C-alpha cells in the first residue's frame, strides 16, 4: 500500500521540481517565448480567468460569474449583452465598452483547445479501433493458416516501415482533408503492426507442454484456440495496445499537420505557432500529452480487469 502510494508521489514530486526549475530558468535567462514559454503562461492558456475593467484583479471584484462556456469572469459593473458578446471574441485584446476601459488580463484558450482535442481524440480512437480489429484479425488468420503468415508478413513489415509523413497527405487526398476518416486511416496504419505482431506472438508462443496437454484430451483446433491460444495472447495484446495508445494521438495530430478542419488539434497548434502564440500552442500540446497519458491509463485499467490472473498484478 505505502509502496504504491510512493509510486504515485515520486513522479509528481519530480514534475513539480522540474516545472519550478523551468519557470525559474526561463525568467532568469530571459528566454524568448517562441523558444520556450514559461509554464505559467502555458498554464494561463488553460486557466479560465478573464478580468474585465483594468483596475480589477481577482478577489476584489464585485461579481464573480461562471459562464456556460467555462469562463470565470471577474468584473466590476454590469454584465450587459454587449460585454458578453465582446468577451466571446476576446482572447488577448484589450477593448473598451460603454465608456469603461476593459482589459482582458488573461484570455483562456481552454474552450477551443478542449473542442479541438475532443475532435482529434475521436479520430485517434476510431483509428485505434480499426487498427486493433485489423491487427487481431490478421494475427488470428495467420495462426489458423500458417501459410498466410509467410504471405502476409512482408506486407505488414512494409506497412510498418512506410514513413507516415509521406502517407498522411495521400490519405488526405483519398478521403478528403476535412474527413476524419483520413486521420483514422493514418492511425490505423500506424498501430496495425504493433497490435498484429504482439497478438501473433502471444497466439503462437504457447508452451509446448500446455499444447501437449490439449492434445492428450483430443481437443479440437478451435478449442485450442479459445481455451489456450487466445488467453495466452491477451497479455501481449495489451502490450501492443499500450504502444498503440501512445501512437494513436501522435498519428492523428501528425495527419492534421498536413491539413484538416480548423477544429482539429494539429491544425490549432500549427495556426497558433504561425501567429506567434507559442504559449497557446504549448498549452494545446500539453493537453495532447495528457490525453495520451489518459488513454494509456485506461488501457492499463482495462488490462487489470481483463487479466486478474496475471502475476504482474500480485497484491
Amino acid at each position, binding site marked *: 500500500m505505502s509502496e504504491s502510494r510512493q509510486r504515485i508521489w515520486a513522479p509528481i514530486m519530480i514534475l513539480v521540481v522540474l516545472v519550478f526549475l523551468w519557470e525559474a530558468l526561463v525568467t532568469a535567462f530571459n528566454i524568448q517565448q517562441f523558444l520556450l514559454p514559461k509554464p505559467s503562461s502555458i498554464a494561463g492558456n488553460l486557466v479560465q480567468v478573464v478580468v474585465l475593467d483594468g483596475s480589477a484583479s481577482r478577489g476584489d471584484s464585485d461579481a464573480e460569474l461562471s459562464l456556460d462556456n467555462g469562463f470565470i469572469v471577474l468584473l466590476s459593473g454590469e454584465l450587459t449583452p454587449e460585454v458578453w458578446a465582446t468577451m466571446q471574441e476576446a482572447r488577448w485584446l484589450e477593448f473598451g465598452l460603454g465608456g469603461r476601459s476593459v482589459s482582458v488580463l488573461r484570455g483562456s484558450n481552454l474552450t477551443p483547445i478542449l473542442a479541438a482535442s475532443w475532435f482529434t481524440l475521436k479520430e485517434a480512437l476510431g483509428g485505434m479501433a480499426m487498427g486493433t480489429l485489423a491487427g487481431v484479425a490478421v494475427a488470428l488468420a495467420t495462426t489458423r493458416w500458417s501459410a498466410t503468415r509467410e504471405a502476409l508478413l512482408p506486407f505488414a513489415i512494409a506497412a510498418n516501415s512506410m514513413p507516415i509523413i509521406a502517407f498522411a497527405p495521400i490519405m488526405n487526398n483519398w478521403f478528403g482533408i476535412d474527413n476524419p476518416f483520413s486521420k483514422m486511416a493514418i492511425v490505423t496504419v500506424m498501430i496495425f503492426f504493433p497490435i498484429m505482431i504482439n497478438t501473433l506472438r502471444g497466439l503462437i508462443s504457447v508452451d509446448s507442454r500446455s499444447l501437449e496437454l490439449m*492434445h492428450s*484430451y*483430443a481437443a479440437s483446433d478451435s*478449442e485450442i484456440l479459445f481455451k489456450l491460444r487466445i488467453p495466452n495472447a491477451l497479455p501481449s495484446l495489451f502490450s501492443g495496445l499500450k504502444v498503440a495508445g501512445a501512437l494513436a494521438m501522435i498519428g492523428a495530430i501528425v495527419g492534421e499537420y498536413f491539413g484538416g478542419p480548423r477544429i482539429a488539434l494539429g491544425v490549432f497548434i500549427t495556426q497558433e505557432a504561425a501567429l506567434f502564440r507559442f504559449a497557446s500552442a504549448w498549452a494545446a500540446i500539453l493537453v495532447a500529452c495528457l490525453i495520451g497519458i489518459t488513454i494509456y491509463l485506461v488501457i492499463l485499467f482495462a488490462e487489470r480487469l481483463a487479466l486478474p490472473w*496475471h502475476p504482474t498484478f500480485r497484491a
Partner: protein
Amino acid sequence: MTKPVVVLENVDMIFGEGAADQVHALKEIDLQIEQNDFISLIGPSGCGKSTLLRVVGDLIQPTSGMATINGKSARQARLDQDYGIVFQAATLYDWRTVAKNVQLPLELMHFSRTERDRRTQAMLELVELTDFAAHYPWQLSGGMQQRVAIARALSFEPSILLMDEPFGALDEMTRERLNLELLNIWRKTNTTVLFVTHSITEAVFLSTRVIVMSARPGRITADIAIDLPQPRNAETRSNVRFFELETEVREALRISEGGQESNRAPA
C-alpha cells in the same frame, strides 16, 4: 484373460535422426501392460522414461515400431480420450483458477455443469486444496501446483493414467498420503497406471511391476514383478518381502548403469 491395455512392439525413438547430435532415446522396446496393472518405470536421468510415456500417449510418434492401446492405435486411443496425463512439470493454465484448471478436461469432454462441479469438488478434497479453489496457479507452491495437476488428470477417470514423476516435488508426508490415495483410486476404478519415478521405495510400494531402464540408448533391462499382497498399506512397508524387492530393484538399477560401461569396453 483380458486383452493387454498397452502393447509396445520393437519401438525405437531417435531424436534428430541423421544429425550429428542425434539421440537414441528408446531402443527395441517391447512392453505389454495388462488391464489394472500398475507399472513403474525407473532408471537414470535421461534414459527415456518421459519419452516412453509420450510414445504411449501419442504425443510423439516413434521412429519405428508399433504402439497399440486398448486394441487400437495410440492415436485412436488419444482421440477417444483414454489418457490422463500428469507431466513432470505441473503445466497449469495461468489464467484459470485452481478449480477451473481441474475442470479443463471435463469441459473438453462435455460433462454437465453440475457433474463438473461435483467432480472438481471431490478432486480438490482429495488433494486437500478445497480452500484454494479460487486461487490462481502463481499463488501456489510447486507441490500444490502438482497436486492440482494430479486432480485434473484423475477428474475424468481415464482408462490409462500416465504419470511422469507426479510426486517428485512433494514432501515425504504428502507423498506417502497421495501414494495411498492413488492406490485407492486405482483399486476402485479400472485404471491402468504407467508411473515414472526416481524413488525405488515408491516404485516397489505402488506397483504390480517395476520396469528398469538403462540410458543411451534407452532400453528395458529388467522387469520385476512385485508380489506384495494387495491392498498395500502402512504395513506393506515393514514386510520383509518389501525389503527384498527393494534390494532387487536397486541391484537391477546398478547393473543397468554398470552394464552400460561394459557394453563399451569390448569395442
